[in-house]
Every structure is written in C-alpha cells, then in structure tokens.
C-alpha cells in the first residue's frame, strides 16, 4: 500500500511538472506571430565600404543587372535578401516547435523560411543541394529567437546592387521584440553574415519591422508579364505567317 501511494505521488508530481513545463514554454516564448512591415529608417544600411575579399570585389564589379538579377526572371529573392530588403509585409506563423517567416514579394507566390526549433542543422553534405531559402534551425533563448541558416543558393544575390555570396554563407539571426514610443511594437532582427569567401570579417546588419495587423500579403504574379510577352510574341508570329501565306 505504501509502495502504491509512493508511485501515485511520483506520477502526480511528474504530470504536474510536465504541465508546468508546457505552460512555461508557452508563456516564456514571446508571441512574434502576425504581420509586420519593414522600417527602413530604423534598419541598418549596408556598410561603406563593404569588407569584401578580392574575389568578391571582382564579382561585385562584374555584376550586370540585365543578366545577373534573378528577380528580373521571376526567381525568388532568396534568403537573406528576402529578410533584408523590400517593402512588402512579413508574416510570422508560430507554433511550439517551429516559426515560419513568410515573405510574399511580387515574385513567387510565397517565400517561406521554415525555422524548426531545437532541431540541429544537418551535417555538411556535398550531396545536399543549396536552396534559395536555405536550411534553418532555431531556438528560444529567453526572449530571443536565435536562428542559424546554411545551404544557401549562391545564384541568389544579397541586394539590388548585385552583392553576391558564396555557398559557404552562414546567417545568424537574433529576433526579439522591442517597443518604440512612436511606432509601438517592433520586431528586430540582428543579423550576422559569415562568409569568408565574400567578407573579410563578419557583416552585422539590423532589420526592424513594425507591428502591422492590418497589412495583408498578396499573391505575386511576376510570371504574368513573361506569359503575356510570350503569348503575344507567339500570336504575332502566327499572324505574320498567315499574312505571308495569304500574300502568296
């Protein structure tokens, strides 16, 4: 009987501990979900001069916007450019085991950065292809969400000036909430870009978003321009051929 009581007590204690743990997790992770608008004036500009390696400087100088700008071809902004630039809203979706950062620039329908919490980044593997959005892992440390992102596609560029990066780029972020007397709730992302093949020293940037519950993300249809161009080109060829056939 004594033994049974002890077991019951231990079970109750464990159950309460689990409940408290769940509640504590829910309570301690701040709620950063919702829609946010970037605030350019509070965000840090790119440093001048950029701490570029010799090869990066050459790549930068050779940038041709007509040829090398992915967005002109309706390709994604990619990470970290989606986080660092643009004026379109950011939407954050948050659960206990993941945080999704959704950008919807006028390119693809959506660029969703998936950050899985407390799940280590995969070991380096040459067979894994880089992606435009990268592979991210995060964890809550007190009130700050720390995110690390790797395996980023080097075809993506970092800004509209054509600053590129290598496949070795590693992005570290610290997302946290602040309050501004004038603007209200702010979501701040302190970013460090590590890429020894591009930068001679880690590059530190800050991106600030303001709480914008009424902002809406809309579908982008960049491809419509390409579609209309192509349809008309094709139709014009058809009409020209028909005219020629009629003339004969």
């Amino acid at each position, binding site marked *: 009987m004594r033994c049974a009581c002890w077991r019951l007590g231990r079970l109750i204690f464990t*159950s309460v501990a689990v409940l408290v743990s769940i509640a504590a997790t829910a309570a301690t992770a701040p709620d950063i979900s919702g829609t946010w608008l970037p605030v350019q004036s509070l965000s840090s500009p790119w440093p001048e001069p950029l701490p570029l390696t010799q090869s990066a400087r050459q790549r930068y100088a050779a940038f041709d916007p007509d040829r090398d700008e992915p967005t002109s071809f309706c390709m994604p902004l990619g990470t970290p450019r989606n986080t660092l630039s643009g004026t379109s809203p950011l939407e954050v979706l948050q659960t206990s085991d993941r945080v999704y950062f959704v950008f919807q620039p006028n390119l*693809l*329908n959506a660029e969703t950065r998936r950050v899985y919490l407390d799940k280590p980044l995969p070991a380096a593997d040459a067979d894994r292809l880089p992606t435009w959005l990268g592979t991210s892992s995060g964890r809550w440390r007190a009130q700050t969400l720390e995110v690390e992102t790797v395996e980023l596609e080097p075809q993506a560029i970092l800004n509209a000036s054509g600053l590129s990066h290598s496949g070795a780029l590693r992005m570290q972020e610290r997302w946290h909430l602040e309050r501004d007397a004038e603007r209200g709730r702010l979501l701040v992302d302190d970013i460090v870009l590590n890429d020894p093949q591009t930068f001679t020293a880690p590059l530190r940037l800050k991106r600030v978003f303001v709480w914008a519950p009424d902002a*809406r993300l809309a*579908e982008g*249809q960049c491809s419509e321009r390409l579609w209309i161009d192509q349809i008309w080109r*094709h139709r014009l060829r058809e009409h020209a051929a028909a005219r020629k056939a009629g003339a004969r």
Partner: protein
Amino acid sequence: MLLLVMLAAAPLLRAAHPAVSREMAGVWLPDSKHSDRMPSQWPLRPEAAAARDKWLAEYGPVDTTVDDTNASCIAEAMPWPVRLIAQYPFEVLFTADRVTIFYEVFGSLRRIPIGTARNTFEMLPSAMGRSIGRWEGDTLVVETDMIRREGAGKPAGNPPVSNARRIIERWSMGKDDTGRKQLRNQITIIDPVVLSAPVTMTMRYKWSPDIAVGEYLCQQDIWDQNLQGSPSTVPWRK
C-alpha cells in the same frame, strides 16, 4: 495519468481547433489512386457552352504548350491545387484561429481564418481566393470565393469560371486500406453562371511525415537559359 494531463493541457495551447487538427497538421501527398477524377462531361449551362464554343471558333484550336498558363508559371487557381493528383506535397499548419496550407506547386499559399471573415477592403480576386473556415465537429469546412478567373478555366477541358464561383471543402480524417491515417477533402464546385449543378469530388491524401515541402522554381528554366544558354523544354521559349 500523464497522458490525461497532457491532453487536458493541449486545449490551453490550441483552443481554436479541435483535437483532430493535430492529426491533420503536417505534410501530405495526393493519393491519386483513391481520389476522384474530374468529370469527363461538365454540366455546363447552355449559355456557358455557347460562349465556350464561340471562343474556340474565334481563337482555337487550343495549343496547350502556348495557351496553358501553367507552362508560363502562372499559379493554378482554386480548386486545382487541392485536387492535384501529381505527387507534389502540401503542408497544413494550424495556428491560433487560422489554418495555413502551403503547396509546393507554384509556392502557393492559402490563408484560412476560422470563423472570422477577412477584410476584403481593396481585395482583388486571386488564384487562392478568399477563404473562411469553420469546424463542424471533426470536419473542417472551408468556403472560398473571389477566385481569379484568369488561368482558372484551363484550356485542357476544364470549364470557364465566373465571378460567382464558390468552392466548399470538407476536410476530415479517415484511414486507408492499410489502416494508415488519411486526409480527405470533399470538394464541391458551385458556379451558377457556368454550371447547371454543383460538381462534387473527393480527394484523399497520404500522410507523409518524412517529406518536406520544397522550393518550386518554375522559372528556373528561363533563368538557366539566361545564365547558360541551355535549351528550354517549352517550345516557344527556344
């Protein structure tokens, strides 16, 4: 006891959705073998059939390599993303008062608020339309309207689309023949301007926890051509 305590705590964390939402959340693949096909004959109203015939007489015949918006990376409009039978995954994510569905195809994304209509101020029709959801027991009912007409009636035989089109989905959980959990979606297409009767079909999806929704770079073809001069698979892009 432990399980009971955890179950009791769960609603505190996710009050807007019933327990079945935990079964629905995650990544799914279409189960094409066990899903309905599109009807071979659509119940077109006479006026809609006449309009389609007139269009075909004027602009036909349709060349799907040119006239199909998909070939130009235009996202498919509702309900085609939910009735896709190709093996592209999608992810269902439940957050407070909302369901979000991420489709790999075209990177499309659906936002489905539960019980509250979205602000439609200055809202234009879109491929995913405007959705609102509600729970009827363990069934998630989603109604969608404001669907963009362009690209919605594909030239490959699907009917035209009017501004009055509405889609009603009934998402529920079941089991497949092997006892594995299965997501089901009964889709009803209502379009009183085009269709003489609603069209209903049921899709089934396979639970796919080991699959991630990947990046869908439809425009990669054009981008590669730009960078490398590689030939396109699309005839009129060559």
